[in-house]
C-alpha cells in the first residue's frame, strides 16, 4: 500500500508548482485527481488552508478582513501594512455582529480588534 501523503506535503507541492509558473489548471487537476483517487475529497477545505499557509510563507498573503462596517481605503492600506508580504490581497466581509472594530485573518494568524472579541475576553477573565 502506498504511503499516505500528509496534507502539508500536498500543499507544499501545489504551492511550489503554482509559484514556479506551472499552469494553475494542470496543477489543480492533478491534485484533484489525487484527492479523488485517495478518497480524501473531504479534506479539501483544510488543504486550501494549508496551500494558503505555504503561499503565505513564500510571501503571497491573502487576508480575510471582517468588520462591522465597510472599510475605508486608509484602513485597508493600514491592514495591508500589518499583514506584510510582497502583494497582500484582502477578502472583505461585513459582519454586523462583530459590533465594531476589525478582525484580520491571515493563514495561521489572526488580529482580532473587534468589540465582540473584547467582550468575550472580559467575560472569560471575570469567570
Amino acid at each position: 500500500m502506498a504511503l499516505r501523503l500528509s496534507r502539508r506535503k500536498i500543499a507544499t507541492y501545489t504551492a511550489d508548482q503554482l509559484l514556479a509558473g506551472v499552469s494553475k489548471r494542470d496543477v489543480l487537476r492533478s491534485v484533484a485527481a489525487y484527492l479523488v483517487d485517495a478518497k480524501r475529497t473531504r479534506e479539501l477545505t483544510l488543504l486550501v488552508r494549508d496551500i494558503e499557509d505555504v503561499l503565505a510563507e513564500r510571501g503571497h498573503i491573502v487576508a480575510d478582513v471582517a468588520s462591522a462596517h465597510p472599510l475605508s481605503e486608509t484602513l485597508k492600506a493600514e491592514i495591508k501594512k500589518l499583514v506584510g508580504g510582497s502583494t497582500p490581497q484582502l477578502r472583505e466581509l461585513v459582519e454586523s455582529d462583530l459590533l465594531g472594530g476589525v478582525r484580520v485573518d491571515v493563514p495561521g494568524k489572526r488580529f482580532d480588534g473587534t468589540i465582540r472579541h473584547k467582550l468575550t475576553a472580559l467575560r472569560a477573565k471575570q469567570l
Partner: protein
Amino acid sequence: MADIAITELSQNLRDAIAGLKTSEGLEEVGIVTRIGDGVAWVHGLRNAGFSEMLEIETKEGIVEAFALNLMEDEIGAVLLGSDVNVSAGNTVRLKGTQLEVPVGPELLGRVVDPLGRPLDGGPAIKTKKTGLVEREAVGVMGRKSVHEPLMTGIMAIDAMFPIGRGQRELIIGDRQTGKTAIAIDTMINQAKQKSGVVNVYVAIGQKLSKIARLVDRLKQEGVMEQTIIVATGPSDPASMLYLAPYAGTAMGEYFRDNKEHALMIYDDLTKHAVAYRQMSLLLRRPPGREAFPGDVFYLHSRLLERSAKLSDDLGAGSLTALPIIETQAGDISAYIPTNVISITDGQIFMETDLFYQGIRPAISAGLSVSRVGGAAQTKAVKSVGGHLKLGLSQFRELASFAQFGSDLDAETKGQIERGQRLTELLKQPQYQPMGIWEQVSSLYVVNEGLFDKVSVVKIKDAQAALLTRLWTDHKEDMRKLNSGDKPDEKLLATIKKVATSAAKGFEG
C-alpha cells in the same frame, strides 16, 4: 580573515533589530476541525508545544485544552472542561504557557479540583505562587538517602515495613480490603504525633460521597488544617482525572522545596491509568497490552519520581508517596500493578481472606516489603520489631497445622501460640493510630512471652490494660520512649513489671 569592526557590532545589531518589521497584535490561531469525547482536533498552530495550553473560543466563552498529539497536519488536544459548547470551526489560540496550578500554604484545609479551583464552597484561593503541573524530578545530586521515619501509627507497618520520608510505598489490594483506611490513618497520625508533615490526598475518580465522608472525618480528627484534598469524581472528564495526581504533586512539591515535609496519597492509580487509556485511545494512539498505551509506565514513573528526600543543600525537605492500586481477585501480576510495584520502594499488600477473618489491617506479611524504610525506622521500634516479619510469616505457614494441636512438637506448638497472640496484637481499629511508646511496649511484651498465659481472645484487653497502666503510672518514661530512642534496661524492666501484673487479670 577580513577585518571585523567589533566596536560597531553592537550598534549594527541594534539597527538590524530596529529595521525588522513586526506584526504586533497578530496571534497564532488554528481552528477546531473535529470534536468529540472531550478531544478536539485542531488545524493550524504549527508552533504549539507538547502539553501547551490552548484556548478555544466558543459562543459561550473560552474553553481550555492542552495539546497532547502533535502531528504533521493536526493537533489532538484534550479539553479541560465540557465539550458541549465547542464546535467545528471554533478558533483556537496558543496560550504560550504550560499548565500551572496555585501552590502554597493558602491551600491547606481546602478541597480543590486539579486546576486549584475550590470545591468546598469556600472563598476563592489566592496564592502567591503557582507550580508547574508537569515538572522534572530532582536529579541525583539533589537527593539524599531516606533516613527519617514517617510513622503511620499502624503497628504492623511501622514494625515490619517501616516507611521513611521521601519513600514511595505502594498500598495494593482488592476492593474493600482497607487500602484507603491505611492512608487515612497515616494522615491522622501526622496530626496526632504533631510530625509537621503536610498531607495531600488526591482522589482520582472517587465517589463524591466517599470524598465528603473523608473530609468530615479529617475535620473531626483535626487533620484538615494540614491537609489539601485534590478531588475528582467519576463524572469529571478523563483529562481532569489524568491531571489530578500531577497537580497534587505540584502542591506537595511546594512544601518539599521549602524545607518542609509532605505526604502524597494517590487514591488510586488504577483509575488514573484507566483515564489515561481512555484519553490515549480517543487520541488514536496505538493500544498495547490491555489496551493501555505504550507510555503507561512512564505515566506513573515520572509522577512517583518526583517524591524524594532532598539533599541538605536543597533544604532537606521531603515528599513521601503512598500510591494505591486496586487489584482484581488478588492478581498482583496484572499490567498496572507490576508496573507500579517496580517503580515504588516497596508495597503493602492487603489480603481479602485476612480481612474477612477479622485480621484488620489485613496486611500480608509475606508479600509486603519496604525496600528502603529499614534505615529510617526508629531505634525504639527496631529494637522490638526485628524478627517480627519472619516470625509472622512462619506462623502463617504453620497456622494450617494448628488444628492438629495435640500431635505437634512443643517448639512448633509454641511458635503457633506466639503467632496467634502476635496476630491478635497487630489487629488495630480504624482511626486509632498508635504512638511509638504504645507500639514498642506492646511488641516487647509479646516478644518476651509475658502474655503467653493470656488467652488469645483476651490479648487486646490485656494490651489496653497494659497501655493504660503504663500511661497512668509512668507518663514521663513513656514520653521518653515516644522520642524514638532505644529503650534502656530500666525502662524495659518497668514495662515487664507492669505487663506481668496486667496479664494476671486476663489469664485462662
